[in-house]
């Protein structure tokens, strides 16, 4: 039991089913050490709630419209701890891979939830560093079909075919799509791992190029290769990158 001095644990409930939210609300209602700061019916609302209300913990469903629970954690995992609540047991390993505090299988008892909340309180009290956002939550071997980028409370969903290139920038990567730049806090290697290697080629230490956006490769005055994109953009190509590019373009 938390003593009276400690502030209550601030919790956001995220589930697309009203009844599933109701049972969580009911379970925590009698506990003065818990404060429910938000109830969200989908992943977008969850990201917004984390950005604006800064809860300590998400009680998070996995299968939801728009963004699933893992995609939510990819976007806000640096800022909040998570307890997953789902009817599916097959996501448990992935959940612990991203350092989820607990994994509750529906339907669960009030006692089971209390145990998870105690564990969360302990973890947060120890000030353990959160797992960090940008951690790939995807099943290995299956390239993602879209990239999620968080912009404060907003989430941008970029289909991979609309990404022209990805550029490394200090602690971030920048996704260039339809004339817009989207910053995401992950490394270029992480971005490369999540994208389809048949479509994206590392042409430079700092650039990952979508082959569909390439029109030609020029040589500049200093004998360096330059990739020219369909929108006229010019990107440097390193020697190793040129080798990768030509091996990919030759049949």
């Amino acid at each position, binding site marked *: 039991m938390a003593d009276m001095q400690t502030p209550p644990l601030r919790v956001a409930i995220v589930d*697309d*089913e009203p009844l599933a939210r*109701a049972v969580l609300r009911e379970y925590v209602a009698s506990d003065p050490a818990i404060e429910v700061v938000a109830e969200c019916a989908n992943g977008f609302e969850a990201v917004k709630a984390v950005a604006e209300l800064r809860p300590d913990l998400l009680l998070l469903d996995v299968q939801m419209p728009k963004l699933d629970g893992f995609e939510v954690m990819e976007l806000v995992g640096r800022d909040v701890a998570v307890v997953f609540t789902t009817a599916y047991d097959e996501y448990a390993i992935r959940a612990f891979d991203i350092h989820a505090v607990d994994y509750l299988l529906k*339907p669960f008892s009030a006692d089971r939830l209390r145990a998870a909340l105690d564990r969360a309180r302990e973890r947060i009290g120890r000030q353990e560093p959160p797992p960090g956002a940008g951690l790939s939550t995807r099943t290995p071997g299956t390239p993602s079909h879209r990239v999620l980028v968080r912009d404060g409370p907003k989430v941008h969903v970029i289909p991979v075919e609309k990404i022209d290139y990805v550029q490394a920038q200090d602690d971030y990567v920048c996704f260039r799509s339809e004339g817009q730049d989207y910053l995401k806090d992950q490394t270029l290697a992480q971005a490369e791992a999540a994208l389809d290697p048949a479509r994206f080629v590392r042409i430079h230490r700092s650039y990952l190029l979508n082959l569909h956006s390439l029109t030609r490769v020029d040589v500049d005055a200093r004998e360096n290769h330059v990739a020219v994109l369909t929108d006229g953009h010019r990107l440097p190509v390193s020697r190793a990158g040129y080798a990768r590019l030509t091996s990919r373009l030759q049949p």
Partner: protein
Amino acid sequence: MHPILARFERLAAYLASWFTIGILVALVITRQGLSWPEALVLVLPPLLVYAFVCLSAWYVCRAMPLTSGLPALLTASIAAAAFAGGFWMALSQTWIGILESLPALGATTERFREQSPYLLVVAVMLFLLVLSLHYVVLAFEAFRAAEHQQLELQVLSRDAELRALRAQINPHFLYNSLNSISALTSGDPGAARRMCLLLADFLRTTLHMSTLDQISLQDELTLADRFLSIEQVRFGSRLRVERHVDEDTTACRVPPLLLQPLLENAVAHGIAGLVDGGVIRLEIHRDRDRLTIAVENPRDVDAPWPTRGGVGLDNVRRRLAVVFGVNAQMEAVATPGRFRVMMSLPWGTDG
């Protein structure tokens, strides 16, 4: 039962072959100086009796199957052939004795006896021929029996497969329903009880139906309604259903649990992925001797292609193939934002 004696047409064919062989043997003997009638009279009657003696080769085959090994087979065959040869000797000598006693043939009997060694060789050869014929027949019958057993096995495994396929109740559907009941218990006990009853009804009907080969479409529709009522407790106003069912179709006989997996799919991969839900459209029509069933649902345009979607649909497709073969079709069409499954099966009613 003896394979040749068992069927009249086989016995007739067998005796006809012996008759032909007898004529051929008689033809050879005419070269030894006998006239046609004399040769036929000498050869045919004992040979036709001998034909029945040779049928005993079957018992040799049974006692010595082909798997017994070559030395044992050869020994048994030679012994049996020697026995048959002895029998032939007794038979032919008796016959010649009878012929000798006939005054009309008295003059030729000496020449009859001269033929005996040749005829003995022929008789032993013929016995060996019949023996191998029996082995062929026996092998053929064993092959047929194996084929039959194979067919029977296929039917059995088909039945087992159908039973297993029909018994697939999605456990996540159960867990989520139980979670809804758990949520309703404190706030709305009446609704919790209604949900329990719906769920019990659904499970009982599903399990009962899975033991049947065919049900009426009306029963399938009732089950589908129960399923949708349960899901409506979970999804509330997000799940809406439009039914376009021709009234005259409900008597049609269909394999059980064809519709329910399609609706389950439409909820799990359509409605559940939409913030505001949507409308599931169910259409059932009769077109002369065909019944068509279509289920259409909206789906999120941005949603990843369902990776765990196909199981229910594959299951229905396999069952249609098992029950109707090429006589039933099923196709799924995905367009941005919509998913439609259509199936067409033969129309059939009781009586």
